[in-house]
């Protein structure tokens, strides 16, 4: 390889390593901030500025999952669950019975047109007042979320895909993050750590025409915030994932040793860069206490 080419090659790999370290520093700083905010109680009891979060759920598995959604302490919070009573009549009937739901007037706001909505349900019991169920023919998760936005009452919406759960302190932490800035200053909060999170201002989602591919692009950069903490996780984390990770690490180490022994230094450099990124990701994983709790919980459930 030409000298200039090698220098560019090494510089590119060094940039990847630098990027991994920048991400690692951000994750460590975010863990410190989360630890600080986890001990505050004022915001979680009060919601002083009225900002609330509506969680939009498409395709819940059943009653237990709905109960888990309602297990949130933040006062300004609601769960909007979209279910198809024709496709899943048993689950629908079970949720209706368990939470004492009755059908209420459904006259959607002119925000987002929603097709296939058969009805809207709320609970007669005050303890379940934060649950809203939309009976809608399922076409896609995006259509479910768009229908849910029409009945969501709070200023921020958090779509949850099937098989995704909120981690403890998710809503509280997001509410605190929103309350750190003036009203209207933040329209999008996302986190690439764990399962990807996308919390959107309701009006921004409506202005973008729903949860389409242009949603993020339509929001000005100055109104986007990126957090480096885990908020969501898979409902059934794979038990084999740690084993696969260890296997991949051993395979990578063997490949690095083999390429170094064979004198293929360019390939060795690429593999070592991958190893740096993987090691940084593993270190970042140790910084997230909820990850540890979730892993312990999944080990117990297995």
């Amino acid at each position: 390889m030409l000298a200039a080419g090698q220098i560019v090659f090494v510089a590119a790999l060094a940039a990847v390593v630098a990027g991994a370290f920048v991400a690692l520093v951000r994750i460590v700083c975010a863990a410190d901030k989360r630890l600080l905010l986890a001990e505050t109680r004022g915001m979680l009891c009060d919601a002083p500025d009225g900002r609330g979060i509506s969680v939009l759920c498409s395709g819940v598995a059943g009653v237990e999952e709905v109960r888990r959604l309602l297990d949130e302490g933040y006062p300004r919070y609601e769960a909007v669950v979209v279910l198809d009573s024709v496709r899943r009549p048993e689950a629908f009937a079970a949720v209706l019975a368990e939470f004492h739901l009755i059908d209420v007037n459904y006259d959607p706001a002119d925000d987002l047109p929603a097709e296939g909505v058969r009805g809207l349900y709320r609970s007669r019991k005050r303890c379940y007042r934060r649950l809203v169920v939309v009976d809608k023919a399922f076409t896609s998760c995006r259509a479910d979320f768009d229908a849910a936005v029409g009945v969501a009452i709070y200023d921020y919406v958090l779509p949850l895909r099937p098989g995704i759960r909120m981690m403890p302190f998710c809503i509280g932490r997001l509410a605190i993050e929103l309350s750190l800035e003036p009203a209207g200053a933040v329209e999008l909060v996302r986190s690439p750590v764990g399962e990807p999170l996308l919390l959107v201002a309701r009006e921004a989602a409506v202005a973008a025409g729903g949860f389409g591919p242009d949603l993020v692009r339509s929001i000005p950069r100055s109104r986007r915030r990126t957090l480096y903490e885990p908020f969501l996780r898979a409902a059934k984390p794979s038990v084999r994932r740690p084993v696969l990770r260890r296997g991949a690490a051993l395979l990578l180490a063997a490949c690095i040793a083999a390429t170094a022994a064979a004198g293929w230094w360019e390939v060795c450099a690429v593999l070592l860069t991958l190893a740096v990124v993987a090691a940084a990701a593993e270190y970042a994983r140790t910084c997230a206490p909820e990850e540890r709790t979730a892993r312990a919980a999944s080990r117990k459930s297995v």
Partner: protein
Amino acid sequence: MTRIVMLYCAFAACVVVLLSGAVVVRRLVDGRRHRRDALLSRQYLHIVILSLMSETDTVPHFPRLESAGARMVLAETLARLVSSTYGLDLGPLRRIFRDAGLQPFLLRCARRTRGCRRARYLSLLSRLPADAAVAAAVERYGSDRHRAVRFYALMVRLAADPSMALQLIGAYPDPLSAFELSEIVSMLRRGVLPVAYEPLIESPNRNLRSLGIAIVRQFGIEEAEENLLRIASEDTTGELGREALYALCALRRPMARREVVRRMGLMSRAERRALLRCMALEGYSETAFGSPVGDEETPYFESFVLSYKRCLVC
């Protein structure tokens, strides 16, 4: 030129070894520390509660206090106890706090760290029964680069000398966010800050006015309705006017007043709709405000109000 690549490989290999070692050490240390801290925390809480219930002045003995991290566990346990209770007798806690040397320990930790870690130590200090000398020790953090450090330095000074609350909050350089207001109000709810709402809500200072509105809303002081209407009409575009409207909504006061209507007319469409949704949530009826904000918003408001009802007769 292969040497450049070989040097890079050597560098990357060292980084991988260091990071992997750090992961292993952290997992081992964190696991053991987490278990030990959980056990110590339960023990210390038990000892503190027994001390509060006994009527003697002797300071209880805390096992393993000299071990690494144990003082931090004790500080966190005391802070959590104080945050979750009201009307605690601070005498025994103050004796424990002094005897365990927690004040110099936390100040030392704050000095050696930065950013959110420093803010956390100050946050703990603000909830613990520190003496008045701590206010002077944290004054230098009032000009820290990190906003959380500046705010929790203020909280420490408020806790150390509540009589200076109005002056300290008035002199705070940043506009208080909703989160910061809620922290101050929670201190007030614990009985630490003896402030009344009238001097706050009439103050020309923005932070004090914000705090006054938060107190009115938190404690449901309906007598402050005229003050809120005045703020809504005077602050036509800023945050205070908006907060006053939300406070009126939380108090479930009539929203068809001239001042409310005028202020809502100056809001953006998104802000107005957010307020309308809040009104629907608080239980206002469709006739809450006639048609002050234009006929286009009335159907929007009605759609949310009606979604809480069910037609029994078609």
